[in-house]
């Protein structure tokens, strides 16, 4: 309580009971991110490290898959996603099947590309990153679909492929292909943050899913128009499942794997116990087993409503699981970088000492858009935990 921070805010320092460092007083420890006001503040489950106003276990799409967006910017993407889904439902309800399915398949990938532009996750290498993730994912998705369709052409009567091929082999291959592109970037070692890995995995998965929907459903787009039109819940359900729910599931499983790989690469998870339930291996197992479970159960489910409910439940659970992993990964990522100069927090907009976490709202500065951190770096310290 005696030391003064090296800036003009003249803040008092106090010892954090969790990490033992002298940090500026506030609601959160700027060094380790622990809550200094909650009774058990170490894990701070009430306050998600990316978006402190949300509980960690909240199944939110934007703050989970788009973590670099501050709350104000996130609202724009949240509104766009909501409007986009409404447009998809409207098109499907009007039986504009082709347009509805294309719109549902394009919606999330398009939003994510805008997010990459907004947050500049790719830093100075937008082309290399997009080619390694989105383009590679889309190319592999197209190839995967064409190959499986070639074999599936003799499977209409269900007498060739059984639950093992459909429910186990195909999902495993698809999952491997979804993370193949990001692994190219992993090998280069240029991008080091956990959230980099997350973004690359999600981008690749969304490119893969978009390509599989367009290639896999192309025959239905070009089929002769028959039948009488009427508003159909059936069409709405299958479009939402094929375009939105599958994309979220794939984004979560792929993002989980790549985020944990990225975090693990520099041994920053060393503080965690070996064999931890939220370690790299656990994340990989959960991702693959989820894809397999969905594949096997989907094979036996006869009801479209049941199928959509299953995928919606899986999407919700995976979002929560990914948030829990990310939250703890960001807390674990924090290294002792001291107390930096004052700068505006991108989340709460208060002038706070630049540290791993905002002492006022608790947001992880690693979750700030990269260009913002680069600007801060020009005047002092740009926290990247790395």
């Amino acid at each position, binding site marked *: 309580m005696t030391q003064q921070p090296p800036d003009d*805010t003249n803040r008092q320092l106090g010892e954090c009971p969790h990490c033992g460092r002298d940090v500026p007083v506030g609601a*959160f420890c700027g060094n380790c991110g622990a809550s200094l006001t909650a009774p058990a503040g170490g894990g701070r489950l009430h306050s998600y490290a990316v978006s402190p106003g949300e509980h960690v276990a909240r199944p939110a799409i934007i703050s989970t898959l788009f973590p670099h967006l*501050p709350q104000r*910017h996130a609202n*724009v*993407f949240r509104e*766009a996603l909501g409007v986009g889904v409404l447009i998809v439902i409207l098109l499907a309800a009007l039986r504009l099947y*082709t347009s509805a399915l*294309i*719109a549902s398949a*394009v919606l999330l990938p*398009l*939003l994510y590309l*805008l*997010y990459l*532009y*907004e947050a500049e996750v790719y830093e100075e290498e937008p082309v290399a990153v997009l080619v390694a993730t989105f383009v590679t994912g889309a190319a592999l998705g197209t190839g*995967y*679909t064409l190959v*499986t369709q070639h074999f599936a052409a*003799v*499977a*209409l*009567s*269900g*007498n060739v*492929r059984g639950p093992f091929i*459909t429910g186990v082999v*195909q999902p495993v291959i*698809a999952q491997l292909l979804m993370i193949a592109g990001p692994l190219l970037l992993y090998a280069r070692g240029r991008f080091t943050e956990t959230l980099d890995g997350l973004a690359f995995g999600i981008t690749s998965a969304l490119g893969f899913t978009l390509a*599989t929907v367009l290639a*896999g*459903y192309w025959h*239905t*787009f*070009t*089929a*002769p128009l*028959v*039948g*009488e039109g009427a508003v159909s819940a*059936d*069409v709405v359900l*299958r479009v939402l*499942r094929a375009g939105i729910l*599958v994309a979220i599931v794939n984004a979560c499983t792929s993002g989980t794997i790549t985020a944990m790989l990225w975090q693990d690469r520099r041994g920053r998870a060393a503080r965690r116990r070996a064999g931890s339930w939220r370690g790299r291996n656990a994340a990989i197992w959960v991702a693959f087993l989820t894809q397999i479970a969905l*594949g096997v159960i*989907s094979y036996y*489910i006869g*009801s479209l*409503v049941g*199928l959509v409910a299953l995928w919606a439940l899986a999407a919700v659970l995976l979002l929560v699981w990914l948030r829990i992993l990310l939250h703890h990964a960001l807390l674990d990522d924090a290294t002792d970088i001291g107390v930096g100069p004052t700068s*505006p927090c991108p989340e*709460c*907009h*208060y*002038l706070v000492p630049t540290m791993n976490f905002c002492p*006022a709202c608790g947001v992880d500065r690693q979750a700030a*858009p990269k260009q*913002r951190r680069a600007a801060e770096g020009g005047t002092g310290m740009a926290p990247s935990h790395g």
Partner: protein
Amino acid sequence: MASQYGPWGGYPAAPSFGGGQKVGRGRMLGVGGGALAVIVFVITLIAVLVRVVPTPCSRGCGPAGGLQVGTAQVYTNQKWGYSVPYDPSVFSIGGQNADGVTLNSSDGNGSIQFSATSGNNVNGANQTALNALPSSQFQGVQQIGPVRGAEVGLVDGQGTAYSGQYVDSSGISATPIGVVIFSATQNGVTITVTAFSSASNDNADGPYGLSIGQELDFPVTFATWKGQ
């Protein structure tokens, strides 16, 4: 000045926080919405332009060569006493139970199911068969119209043709299909036939949009009822 300070530790608010937002509401609407509209429009346009137009037969389009007598195998249902002949080079038994049998086409392109029940409610049997199609795989099923000349083993029946999509169990691909469901009844037994295959674009060669339409003829026409 007190209003300048936040609730968490008394940190002052940033005097003017531009935010550095690159994708605001205007750009999201213009770029995001515009891109979505253009992509959907272009892909839809391409799909419509390459859409296959059904080609009705005009002349010289008789049935393909039929099955030679003596090469057929016969499935016999013990419970209801009916029999279904089929060409083993075209169909194989994919499954059977006490009431009937499922014949899968050898090229995997379709399937025919025979199922019998007691009573003479043809429409009810057809509806039961339609409801039995798993909605997770048979999606977008729409009625085309009645199956004209529907019969099972030379016994007149009633039925309906449908179009739809067969979605792969993995959910990654969909195939346009044709489905016909029809039933006939005799002596208190109703036999229902459910057949589906990939959709045919040739109205003459593929009646009711079934690419296995002609193969369907033989087992259905030459099925025999109990006592025949």
